[in-house]
């Protein structure tokens, strides 16, 4: 102990001269830092109600509740997060995981009340003083709790596939599929949008759990043709995928294909035989072995009802067999699915056209119900001069001939008119059989109804795409063959009624493109000529489509319909869904008798 020890503490007195450090007005002087994790904000219009915030919250602080003025629609559950500040710990994991970045935190931190019941609110809907705060926690850049980008699908190289009918998409490996399946946040928004309402999150989960048999079982509950859908589905599910807002949607279609491809075909029966009930004496006739007919056949057999399918052509599959090129859907795949259906007891009579080989009345009188799944087989004409010239084809017929293995001479140059999947398919096939191919489309690329992947694939394969081009005439050469196509350039004019912009031809912009073949691909219509008069008259139609109730029953007694002939979306998955719905309707009708 020294004198220093006694005197030294007195040095603290010199601090009297220092400036005070006290915050004068602590309530107003100190806003939260720019990153401060204060109270919640939510952009209600951006939020899609996927519920991921609620899932990740370890405090069960977030409820998903309906909000007035927000409707449930495709890609939006209509629910919004309600946050309980009796639970929240301001960790901001909900913000980091938010699939649309709509949720954020403000830098406001003062909320005092005597009533414990008030600390529960829907950010965005219940107006709060901090709604306008710009600052606060937002998801940092370069930081993700789940992978935003999809696993790239390996494809055959464009120059290799240009000249062959090899399947372009190679399919996921186990690691790739698991990595892609891992991205799923299990919100289930896709299920509502899928026409067949497949339980997508559940079958994706089986990939993660490496339990593909279970995955197949789940898929067959709502879709008996998963291998087809795994390749050519229009996958509206992916357009509403919650992950698509910040990054890429999950490759739901490829994951479905992965399950279907990786379960051995021999095991199908063992995996799927559960749920089949005993055979009854009911009989149903199905016209057309397209996806809707096959789907119905499966679900009827599952319900113990004998299903007989009458198919005019030599193979089942309808449009999926004849309208889709082999590089997208190899024929073996389809055969495999059909073989399985036949194995479980669906009878398919090939080369039996109703109206020609067998009369509709016979079917009608000999079965307990009839299902019309004839699809849209007659192509629309472009409606311009020169369409009947030699060298002018219809895409649907072109594809059918090619798929049958027949050769068609289209010369060195081909022009395809249209922008749908059929047009792209025709173009890519024309390219494969050696023609320089051009697509003429009235609108812009982004307006094309075809899948973007297909469009990209076509571009990779050096298919020339001319947009905003309206064909006006096919010019013949001296021999009466197609020589060139004349088209007008178009400009896009916004639609007054709020529809999508319309192309309007520009006067005097005629351009001529030389070609040897013109392939029209602007759509198809139905042909009900097989129906006897009395039925055809009573069958209620609307714009060429058969009108049905929610169980796919038509205006005719015990006649059901489905597929392209009924639904406007005209894709395989809707047809499959129709088949399923019709099976439920037929079962209801037959069992209630």
């Amino acid at each position, binding site marked *: 102990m020294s004198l220093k020890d006694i005197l030294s503490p007195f040095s603290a007195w010199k601090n009297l001269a220092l400036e005070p450090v*006290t915050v004068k007005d*602590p*309530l107003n002087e100190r806003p939260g830092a720019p990153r401060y994790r204060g109270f919640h904000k939510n952009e209600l219009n951006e939020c899609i109600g996927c519920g991921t915030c609620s899932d990740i919250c370890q*405090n*069960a602080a977030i409820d998903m509740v309906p909000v007035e003025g927000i409707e449930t629609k495709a890609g939006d559950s209509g629910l919004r997060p309600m946050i309980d500040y*009796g639970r929240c710990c301001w960790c901001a994991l909900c913000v980091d995981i938010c699939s649309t970045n709509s949720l954020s935190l403000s830098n406001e931190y003062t909320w*005092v*009340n005597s009533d414990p019941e008030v*600390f529960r609110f829907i950010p965005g809907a219940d107006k709060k003083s901090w709604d306008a705060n710009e600052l606060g926690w937002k998801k940092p850049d370069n930081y993700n709790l789940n992978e935003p980008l999809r696993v790239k699908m390996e494809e055959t190289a464009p120059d290799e596939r240009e000249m062959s009918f090899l399947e372009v998409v190679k399919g996921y490996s186990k690691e790739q599929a698991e990595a892609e399946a891992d991205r799923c946040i299990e919100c289930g928004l896709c299920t509502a949008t899928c026409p067949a309402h497949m339980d997508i999150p559940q079958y994706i989960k089986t990939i993660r759990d490496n339990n593909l048999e279970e995955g197949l079982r789940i898929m067959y509950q709502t879709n008996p043709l998963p291998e087809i859908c795994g390749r050519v589905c229009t996958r509206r599910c992916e357009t509403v995928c919650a992950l698509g807002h910040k990054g890429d949607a999950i490759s739901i279609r490829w994951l479905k294909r992965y399950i279907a491809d990786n379960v051995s075909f021999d095991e199908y029966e063992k995996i799927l035989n559960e749920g089949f009930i005993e055979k009854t004496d009911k009989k149903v006739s199905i016209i057309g072995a397209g996806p809707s007919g096959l789907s119905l056949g499966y679900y009827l057999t599952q319900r113990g009802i004998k299903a007989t399918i009458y198919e005019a052509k030599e193979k089942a599959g309808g449009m999926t067999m004849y309208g889709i090129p082999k590089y997208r859907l190899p024929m073996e795949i389809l055969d495999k699915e059909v073989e399985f259906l036949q194995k479980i007891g669906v009878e398919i009579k090939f080369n039996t056209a109703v109206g020609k080989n067998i009369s509709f009345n016979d079917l009608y009188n000999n079965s307990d119900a009839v299902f019309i799944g004839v699809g849209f087989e007659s192509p629309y004409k472009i409606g311009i001069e020169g369409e009947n010239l030699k060298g002018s084809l219809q895409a649907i017929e072109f594809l059918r001939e090619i798929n049958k293995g027949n050769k068609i001479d289209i010369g060195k140059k081909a022009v395809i008119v249209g922008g749908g999947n059929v047009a792209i398919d025709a173009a890519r096939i024309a390219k494969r059989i050696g023609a320089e191919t051009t697509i003429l489309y009235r609108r812009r690329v982004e307006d094309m109804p075809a899948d973007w992947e297909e469009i990209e694939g076509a571009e990779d394969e050096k298919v020339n795409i001319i947009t905003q081009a309206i064909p006006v005439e096919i010019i013949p050469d001296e021999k009466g063959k197609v020589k060139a196509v004349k088209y007008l350039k178009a400009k896009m004019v916004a639609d007054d009624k709020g529809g999508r912009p319309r192309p309007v031809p520009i006067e005097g912009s005629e351009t001529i493109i030389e070609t040897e073949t013109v392939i029209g691909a602007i759509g198809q219509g139905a042909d009900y000529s097989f129906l006897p008069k009395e039925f055809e008259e009573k069958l209620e139609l609307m714009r060429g489509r058969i009108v049905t109730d929610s169980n796919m029953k038509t205006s005719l007694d015990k006649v059901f319909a489905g597929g392209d002939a009924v639904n406007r979306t005209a894709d395989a998955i809707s047809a499959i869904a129709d088949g399923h719905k019709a099976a439920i309707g037929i079962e209801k009708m037959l069992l209630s008798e």
Partner: protein
Amino acid sequence: MSEINNKNTSGIEKDKFFAPENEKRTVTAPDGQIIEIDPLNDYFCGDAPRVHKPHKNKLFESFLNWARAESIWVLGFGTGCGSIELYPLLTPRFDAYRFGIQMAPTPRQSSLMIISGYLSVKTLKRVVRSYEQMQNPKFVMGLGSCTINGGMYWDSYNTINRLDYYLPVDTYIAGCMPRPEALLAGFNHLKKAIKEGKGEGANKYAENFEWYKANQKKIIKDWNMPDYNW
């Protein structure tokens, strides 16, 4: 002795958690005198709390309320994590003393109990005891999510979910944990309530005494204390 207490004592005797030091016994004092003691009844006053009516003179009562509001003495009992923010609050940066707020070391001298977050059952027992020892008028402030609806520990077997079932709460402050500034806002809110004559927590506790006791006893299995000990 109130009836509740007698009922309680008889109940405790069958209780497996009954502590031996609370048993009735005889003790020999240093001077040789033999004394019989019943700790639960002899060491504490077991009377139920009484409702204190406001003063008849309204002006005088509002003066009292002003005085109460401007000299809030906080019981120095850090019940949970929120108490770490009391350090900055009571040191030069935020300097709560200038607003009439200061810490008091014992319940007798305190008027405000800050429940700084979650309450385990074991702490709740001490909190109830401390609260009852505080003199009227007394206030309770609940910090953070935990006091409102369980907070982070909503599924914990050892923490309560809602404080208002066990003590009358005057002010809640949202946050996990609330910052010193939010605490100051809470104090302002409380002061305003007291000045308006709404700081009636203690009376509420007295009025609903049986309800509060029943809730407390439902979870504090090891009761071992008189029903009310001020």
